[in-house]
């Protein structure tokens, strides 16, 4: 995933903790945003900020409006490609990767946001009664569960960053989303159960390398147990509402 959009700010020069650089460029007219220097670099001949007609594409959709201009579109594309690459990284963990903890460097919370909403919607759709409560409960459960799991790892002395872990747990929810989707098609009960359990194991298997690489050997079980517990409970929630 070494495309240019991944880490455009590597070219911005070294920065300490939250240091602000009044970025200067040779031509004083160009708004010097290294973050978006890639789209601007190609359009330097034009006026520096072609006043972007900000018809913004909501992330996750693919509607193309005719009045889009480059800069905003590039930002959207970058965000979308980041979501996809994070998803691939998490879902197909390469066991021979040299440092699994490094994988989700480019964390983002858009993917988890959509997966959590999707799961809530699917559960609420397939439930016959109490639709609103199921949605609210699943959202709260997933949100608070992710936060608590992250705090658990941090309190066990694990070296993981808060948002990176939230992002990871959100992305690992994707298989369970698929499981819930399968449960929407009301097939045989046993088939649904098998599908949900398979996706639950896939979720746990995806989350395992990150969590286990973050804590010391002795505390791995302590860190992993709540994770498995949460995914099992989500799986039962899916089965129970379908």
């Amino acid at each position, binding site marked *: 995933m070494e495309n240019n959009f991944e*880490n455009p*700010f590597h070219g*911005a020069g070294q*920065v300490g*903790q*939250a*240091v*602000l*650089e*009044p*970025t*200067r460029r040779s031509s*004083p007219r160009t*708004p*010097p*945003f*290294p*973050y*978006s220097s890639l789209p601007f670099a190609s359009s330097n001949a034009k*006026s*520096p*900020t072609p*006043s*972007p*007609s*900000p018809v*913004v594409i*909501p*992330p996750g959709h693919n509607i193309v409006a005719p009045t889009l201009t480059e800069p*905003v579109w590039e*930002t959207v594309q970058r*965000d979308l490609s980041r979501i996809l690459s994070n998803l691939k990284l998490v879902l197909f963990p390469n066991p021979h990767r040299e440092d699994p*903890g*490094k994988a989700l*460097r*480019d*964390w983002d919370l*858009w993917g988890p*946001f959509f997966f959590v*909403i999707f799961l*809530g*919607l699917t559960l*609420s759709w397939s439930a016959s009664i109490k*639709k*609103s*409560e199921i*949605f*609210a409960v699943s*959202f*709260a459960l997933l949100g608070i569960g992710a936060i608590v799991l992250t705090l658990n790892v941090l309190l066990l002395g694990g*070296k993981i*960053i*808060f*948002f*990176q872990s939230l992002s990871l747990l959100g992305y690992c929810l994707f298989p369970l989303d698929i499981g819930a989707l399968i449960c929407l098609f009301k097939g045989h009960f046993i088939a649904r159960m098998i599908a949900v359990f398979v996706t639950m194991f896939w979720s746990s298997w995806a989350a395992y390398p990150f969590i286990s690489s973050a804590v010391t050997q002795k505390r791995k079980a302590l860190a992993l147990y709540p994770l498995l517990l949460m995914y099992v409970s989500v799986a039962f929630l899916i089965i129970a509402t379908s």
Partner: protein
Amino acid sequence: MDQNQPPGENYAHPKICFFHVLFKAASLAFYILSTIFVDSFVIIFVVTVLLAALDFWVVKNVSGRILVGLRWWNEINDLGESVWRFECLDQESLARMNKKDSWLFWWTLYLAAVVWILLGIFSLVRFQADYLLVVGVCLTLSLANIIGFTKCRKDAKKQIQAFASQTIASRVSSTLQSAFSVV
């Protein structure tokens, strides 16, 4: 930043100002008015939170960049530490920013958060936990942007002051040097 900006009269980027306000107002309006004609809590939740998330994205990526020339993000460096990065335009461009644009930007940012807090108090008083959840999520998104941009602005000011004092110090020292060399 327009080259031909009328002297402080109009907004320099009216369309962006419009979108900046649009999603905030839409999510607030939908939340407040939805109980009248929408029955399902799920729809209220999803639409409100979606509009609030869109607003977050627009403010962070588009209007912050263009209206006030600030940008903030977080990245994880090679040592595995999380670093908050703040970026601002250089001083001359910042001075050229339209005052009306930035006034609108900051005021709507703060105002939206205040309204969400009020709505949160209402739902707290009525013991509606699920609506409190909606308000909580939207408030978190607004606060994140407020904190990010305020920190960014403070850093920008500090940087400008440091730069200015550095320039003054170097000027003073060069003047002293030239004075002593004459003597």
